[in-house]
């Protein structure tokens, strides 16, 4: 055959199709694939080098996912039947993945992995009497505050009870000068309000997660307290988009207190001016009368249902959550270890910025475990923002959140009726 220009052009045009042919070959089913996200994925290859993986076990393949796309990837992976054997899953996604049957429960022989853990974190992973993941690292949100600005107002730190806490914030605000505030509660974030609600003992959903419980007195108390912080001028009515840089504004004293997680410790150490390094600290959340609560966060390692290599997968989870590997993970990523004994081994209790996280994690409360939860809190915050901006009273807002939650939970109620919901 004579090779003409047309043939060449045709061959060139078909080049992009070449990878498709690769898809026709045999798939590599003998490897044990693990999906992980962000920093954890980046440090996994080094971690795997240290776990003494047996030579006769299937080789491990790490596939990193970006955090922003991980949730969708997990669901589309389930829909397409292409989930790996093991995966890192945000604790708040476990309810959803368990409800659709994507996860395998922790088998009896691996149940020892759940000892030496924080109760609230394990509770987050326990649905319908089974545990669906082994906590890998943990986090939660508590207060970051400016020690110097609280000292100027006459306080060592934020007091633990709501009344005292608010009085202290008023003093801080008086000292802060014009245009500055005492605290930052961005109106587009729901974590602040859920933390207050958990501290007040609100359950937020009832009837097995079939209906909203936002009109119950505990949640209303939290909602009213939240509203008063803005009405009394302690917090600016802004969303996160209007704060160009949290650390800079914190350093400038635009606000003296905000809510965030352990990742902020590293950020503050890196980004705050050296002169301010001794002037910030962390403190546990306040509650109506004494130390409050928080929602446990972090990631767990899960084994996906009907994946290959069940035994090897749980073996890998066991090795990755063992104390030595936990310590290595903490050193590589600064993630807080899920095992409580590792906290002592890593000397974390000696770090005054980290120690309050331990106290808070011991006093954490699991959020409602229904797949619709994230959408419900998103709606809750939309209503709360409107309330703060004066569109609703506290009672009206509570009723509106309940109405929206009930609408979102309609399918779940139908599932519960049919006995199909987890």
């Amino acid at each position, binding site marked *: 055959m004579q090779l003409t220009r047309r043939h060449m052009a045709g061959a060139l045009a078909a080049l992009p199709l070449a990878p498709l042919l690769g898809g026709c070959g045999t798939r590599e089913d003998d490897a044990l694939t693990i999906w992980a996200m962000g920093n954890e994925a980046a440090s996994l290859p080094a971690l795997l080098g240290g776990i003494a993986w047996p030579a006769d076990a299937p080789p491990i393949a790490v596939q990193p996912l970006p955090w922003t796309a991980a949730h969708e990837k997990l*669901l589309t992976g389930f829909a397409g039947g292409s989930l790996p054997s093991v995966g890192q899953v945000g604790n708040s996604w476990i309810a959803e993945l368990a409800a659709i049957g994507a996860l395998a429960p922790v088998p009896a022989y691996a149940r020892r992995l759940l000892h030496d853990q924080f109760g609230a974190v394990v509770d987050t992973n326990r649905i319908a009497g089974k545990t669906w993941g082994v906590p890998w690292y943990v986090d939660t949100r508590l207060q970051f505050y400016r020690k110097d600005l609280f000292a100027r107002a006459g306080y060592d730190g934020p007091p633990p009870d709501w009344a005292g806490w608010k009085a202290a914030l008023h003093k801080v605000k008086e000292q802060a000068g014009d245009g500055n505030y005492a605290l930052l509660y961005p109106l587009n974030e729901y974590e602040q309000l859920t933390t207050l609600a958990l501290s007040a003992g609100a359950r937020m959903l009832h009837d097995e997660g079939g209906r909203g419980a936002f009109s119950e007195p505990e949640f209303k108390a939290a909602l009213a307290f939240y509203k008063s912080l803005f009405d009394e001028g302690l917090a600016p009515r802004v969303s996160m988009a209007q704060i160009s840089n949290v650390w800079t504004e914190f350093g400038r004293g635009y606000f003296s207190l905000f809510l965030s997680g352990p990742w902020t410790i590293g950020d503050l150490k890196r980004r705050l001016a050296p002169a301010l390094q001794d002037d910030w600290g962390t403190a546990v959340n306040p509650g109506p009368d004494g130390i409050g609560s928080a929602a446990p966060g972090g990631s767990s390692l899960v084994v996906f249902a009907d994946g290959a290599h069940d035994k090897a997968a749980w073996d890998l989870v066991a090795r990755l959550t063992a104390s030595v590997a936990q310590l290595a993970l903490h050193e590589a990523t600064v993630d807080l270890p899920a095992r409580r004994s590792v906290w002592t081994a890593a000397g974390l209790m000696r770090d005054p910025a980290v120690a309050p996280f331990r106290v808070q994690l011991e006093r954490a409360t699991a959020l409602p475990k229904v797949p619709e939860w994230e959408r419900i809190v998103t709606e809750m915050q939309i209503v709360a923002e409107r309330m703060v901006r004066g569109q609703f009273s506290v009672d009206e807002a509570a009723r509106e959140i309940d109405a929206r939650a009930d609408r979102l939970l309609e399918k779940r109620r139908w599932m519960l009726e049919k006995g199909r919901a987890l």
Partner: protein
Amino acid sequence: MSAQRRTSEGASAVGRAGEVRAGWAMASPALAAILLFFALPAVASLFLSFTDFDIYALADLGNLRFVGLANYERLIQNPLFWKAMTNTLLFVAVGTPLIVALSLFAAMLVNSRWLKWRPVWRVALFAPYVTTLVATAVVWRYLLHTRYGLLNYLLSFFGVPPIDWLGSPTASLPAILLFVGWKTFGYNMIIFLAALQTVPRELDEAARIDGAGWLTRLRHVTLPAIAPTMLLVSVLTVAGMFQLFAEPYVMTQGGPAQSTVTILYFMYEEGFKWWNLGSGAAVAFLLFLCILAVTLVQLRITKRSGAI
């Protein structure tokens, strides 16, 4: 003789039938592809929009319920849907004239006879269209940066205070429009360029001899000659603007304060973030109706003016 004619007539009838068969045979692969990959999914998604397909149904199809028009009813009550609709209409209303004008201007520029190195300019102006969207979005995020951005730097010469392009609810939409315009005008420019080269030079010269200025020649010679192309480009741009998704997804993720949530972005969130595929399909169907309506109106207008 007559028998002969009859046979020849018969033969031609058979030939016509054969031609028809051959025509169908040749068109059938394309028709089958359209049926399989376009018509069938379209009907399926219309059907999907009458169900409450969600993650429960994903786990077990037995959890699927037929809900009639409830998805549409809920959409109409959803303020975010209307916000997305308004944003999209803004993009269409402001973006279409902007992009059409920009690409026509660029096409006339690279078509002009006094320009040297014309092929180089053509490639340079066409390059944004063929560059990867995510890579260009990263560069544009730098250009639009509040403190280090080139755009704010240039504006500072005119005494304009720094604008938080991607962080302020009022500036984000123009910022995305700038990016979209820069990214897409190259394709339209090529179409316009092809049309401009068919405009008879004699007409232009005759008008010039008659004393017509640049603007008059543009209005009375060039634009009438390229009117059909103008229609094609504006239909394509309107359709493209209605389907704006990747740009806000990469640049702002719909924010700040949902000011860049387009209808397609809303559909994506509904379908793949919250996994309400039934409701997402309803949005898709409404979007389809919108684009169809706008295109029909445009066709009607141009038919009346005799461009086609």
